[in-house]
C-alpha cells in the first residue's frame, strides 16, 4: 500500500516536473525580447523567474526519477492529477515576472492574470498596461497562446518515445481528440495547425497595422500579440483600450476571423486540411455554433436597436456582432467599454451575453464554455427522447450525431455531456451568488460569473485590482475548473483528500 502511494507520487512528480521544465524554457522568448529592446530590468525579472521555474521542475523530476527507470504506466488518475497540479505550480511560477515588474498590486493579482492567460480568459488586473515592457507583453500573450493549446500538449510534443499512458496525460487537460494514432503525433499536429495560422494571421494583422498607421516594428508586435490573443480565444491586448485602441474595422474583421477559427475543434481543422471539406457543414459543433451565434446576434441587434443605443444599423452591427461573437467564442476582446454593457445593453442584452459566454466554442479547441458539442448532443438527446415517446416501442431506431465521423447518440454520451453542463451551471451559480453578496447587482454578478466560468474575459466593470479578494480567489478557481472541465480538478482534490485522510487515520491509530 505504502509502495503504491510512493509510486503514484513519483509518477505525478516526474511528469509534473517535466511539464514545468518545458514551460520554463519558454521564458527564453521574453528574455530574448528584453535583450532585443535593451530592457534590462525585465531581463533580470525573467532570468530570476526562469531559474526558479527550472529549479522547481528539476526538483520534481529528481523526486520522481524512478518513474523512467521503472517505465511506470501513467493511469487515468495520474493523468488528471498531473494536468491540474502542473497548472497550479505554473500559475504561481509564471506570476513571478508580473510581480517583479511592479505592475501588479499583489502576488494574488499576478496569479490572477497568469491563470487568466493560461485558461485563455483574458481578464486583467495588471496595472498601467500602456507602459508595460515589450518583454512582459510578450510573456502575457505567449502564456495565452500556450494555454490555448495546453501546457501538457506542449510537453507531449517533445516527450520521449514510448511514454506509457501519454494519452491519459493529454485527456487530463480536457482534450480528447486523436488526430493520428499516437498522442505525440496528435500534439505535434495541433502545434503545426497553430503555427501555420500564426504565420498567416500575424502577416495579415501586420499589413493591416501598417495600413492603419502603426509603425513597422510596433505593427508587427501588435499583430503578433493580437493574433496570439485571438487565436487562443484569450482576450488580452497590449493596450488599455483593448481592440478599441486601433479604431479600425479591418483590424476587427481580421481578429473576428481568427478567433472564430480558433474556437473550432482541432479535429475539424485537420479534417478540412485533409480535404474533407464536407465536415464543415456536417459537424454538430459548427451547426450548433451557427444556430446559437446567429440567434444571439439577431436578438441582441433587435433589442439594442429598439433601445436606440447605436445611431445607425451599421454601427449597431459592428459593435454588437463583434462583442457577441467575441463572447460566444470565449475570446473576450471588447469593442465597447466594460461599463457600457451595464449602462447600455440592459438586462436582456446582458442575459444574451451570459448565455453565449456559457455555451462557448468547440470541444478540443482553444475556447472555453461548456462547448457546442455538448449543447448539440443534449439538444439531440431531447429530440431523441421526444421521438421515442411519440413512436411505437417496436420501432427501434439508432440515433446518431456527426462529430468528425458518425457517432451513436447513446444515453451514456448524453448523460456525460449533461453532467459537465450541470457542473458549469453550479459553478456559475456560486459565482453569481458570491457577486451579489459582495454588493453587485444580479445582472452584473451573472455577467462576471459567466465570463470566468466560460473563460471569456469580457467584464462588466467588476474585475479590477480593487475588487474583493474573495472574488479574485473564486475567479482563479472558476477559470481553472472551467478550463480543465472539472474532472482533473476533482481528481486532484480526491487524490490529495485521500492522502490527507490516510495520514489522519495513521495518526489516530
Amino acid at each position: 500500500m505504502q509502495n503504491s502511494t510512493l509510486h503514484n507520487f513519483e509518477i505525478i512528480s516526474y511528469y509534473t516536473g517535466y511539464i514545468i521544465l518545458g514551460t520554463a524554457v519558454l521564458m527564453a522568448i521574453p528574455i530574448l525580447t528584453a535583450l532585443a529592446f535593451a530592457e534590462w530590468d525585465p531581463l533580470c525579472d525573467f532570468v530570476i523567474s526562469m531559474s526558479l521555474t527550472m529549479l522547481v521542475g528539476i526538483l520534481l523530476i529528481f523526486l520522481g526519477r524512478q518513474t523512467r527507470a521503472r517505465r511506470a504506466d501513467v493511469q487515468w488518475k495520474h493523468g488528471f492529477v498531473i494536468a491540474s497540479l502542473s497548472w497550479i505550480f505554473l500559475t504561481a511560477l509564471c506570476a513571478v515576472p508580473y510581480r517583479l515588474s511592479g505592475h501588479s498590486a499583489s502576488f494574488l493579482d499576478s496569479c490572477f492574470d497568469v491563470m487568466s492567460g493560461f485558461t485563455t480568459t483574458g481578464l486583467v488586473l495588471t496595472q498601467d498596461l500602456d507602459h508595460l515592457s515589450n518583454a512582459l507583453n510578450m510573456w502575457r500573450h505567449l502564456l495565452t497562446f500556450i494555454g490555448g493549446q495546453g501546457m501538457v500538449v506542449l510537453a507531449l510534443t517533445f516527450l520521449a518515445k514510448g511514454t506509457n499512458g501519454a494519452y491519459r496525460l493529454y485527456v487530463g487537460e480536457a482534450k480528447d481528440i486523436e488526430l493520428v494514432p499516437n498522442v505525440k503525433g496528435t500534439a505535434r499536429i495541433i502545434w503545426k495547425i497553430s503555427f501555420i495560422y500564426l504565420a498567416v494571421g500575424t502577416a495579415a494583422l501586420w499589413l493591416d497595422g501598417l495600413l492603419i498607421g502603426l509603425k513597422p516594428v510596433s505593427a508587427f508586435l501588435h499583430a503578433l500579440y493580437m493574433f496570439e490573443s485571438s487565436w487562443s480565444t484569450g482576450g488580452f491586448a497590449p493596450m488599455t483600450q483593448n481592440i478599441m485602441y486601433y479604431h479600425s474595422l479591418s483590424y476587427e474583421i481580421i481578429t473576428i476571423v481568427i478567433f472564430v477559427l480558433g474556437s473550432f475543434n482541432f479535429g475539424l481543422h485537420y479534417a478540412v486540411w485533409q480535404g474533407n471539406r464536407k465536415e464543415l457543414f456536417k459537424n454538430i459543433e459548427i451547426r450548433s455554433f451557427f444556430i446559437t451565434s446567429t440567434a444571439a446576434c439577431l436578438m441582441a441587434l433587435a433589442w439594442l436597436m429598439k433601445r436606440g443605443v447605436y445611431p445607425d444599423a451599421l454601427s449597431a452591427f459592428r459593435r454588437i456582432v463583434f462583442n457577441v461573437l467575441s463572447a460566444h467564442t470565449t475570446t473576450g476582446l471588447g469593442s465597447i467599454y466594460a461599463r457600457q454593457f451595464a449602462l447600455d445593453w440592459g438586462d436582456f442584452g446582458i442575459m444574451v451575453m451570459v448565455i453565449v459566454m456559457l455555451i462557448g466554442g468547440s470541444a478540443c479547441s482553444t475556447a472555453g464554455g461548456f462547448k457546442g458539442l455538448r449543447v448539440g448532443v443534449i439538444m439531440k438527446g431531447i429530440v431523441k427522447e421526444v421521438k421515442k415517446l411519440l413512436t411505437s416501442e417496436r420501432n427501434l431506431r439508432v440515433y446518431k450525431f456527426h462529430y468528425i465521423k458518425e457517432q451513436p447518440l447513446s444515453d451514456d454520451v448524453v448523460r456525460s455531456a449533461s453532467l459537465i453542463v450541470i457542473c458549469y451551471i453550479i459553478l456559475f451559480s456560486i459565482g453569481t451568488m458570491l457577486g451579489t453578496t459582495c454588493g453587485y447587482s444580479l445582472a452584473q454578478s451573472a455577467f462576471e460569473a459567466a465570463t470566468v466560468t466560460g473563460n471569456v474575459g469580457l467584464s462588466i466593470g467588476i474585475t479590477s485590482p480593487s475588487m474583493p479578494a474573495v472574488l479574485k480567489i473564486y475567479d482563479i478557481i472558476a477559470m481553472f475548473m472551467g478550463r480543465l472541465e472539472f474532472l482533473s480538478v476533482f481528481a486532484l482534490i480526491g487524490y490529495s483528500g485521500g492522502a490527507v485522510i490516510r495520514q489522519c487515520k495513521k495518526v489516530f491509530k
Partner: protein
Amino acid sequence: MQKSIQIIFLALLIVLPFTARAYAADTVEINQLIEQENRFNRTQVVVQGEAIGEPMERGDMCWVNLNDGTNAIGIKMKTSDARRIAMFGNYRQKGDTVRVTGTFYKACAEDGGETDIHAVSLEIISPGRVTERPLDSRKAAAAVSLAVLTALCLAALKHKKIDRLFQRKGG
C-alpha cells in the same frame, strides 16, 4: 498706497484658488464621460491626459489615444495637430500631457459606433520625458546567482547521468 497693494494682494490670494478650481472643473475624467455618457453625448468636453502608444495617421485625420489615469479614449484630430505631440507614452517614456477640447460621442455614427472625441483644439500642457529605469543591483545579483545555481543543477543532473543510470537499472 502700501495698504491698497496689500488689500489687492490679499484679494488675489483669496480669489486665485477658486479660479483654479473652476478651471479644473472644466476638465472631465474619461471614466466620468463613460459613466455619464448620455449627459455628455454630443457636447463639447475638455479632457486632459497622457498621449499613449503612437499616432495613427489616416490622411488628413489622425487617431491619438489619451489616458488620463482613470481610463483611455480615442481622440480623432487633424494630422497637423497630432504632429505637435512630440512624445507618446510607452515603457521607455512618459508621453506629452495634452488638453483636448472636442465633441464627445458615446456611439459615433461616423466611426462605426465608437465611443470617441472629435478634437477641436489641442494644447500641450507639459512635454513628455524619458523614463529613467535604473537597473536594480540586488535584482541583477539575484538573477545571476539563480542562473548559476540552475546551470549547476542541470549540469550535475547530466554529469551523474542519473536518468540513464535508472533507465539501465529498470531496463
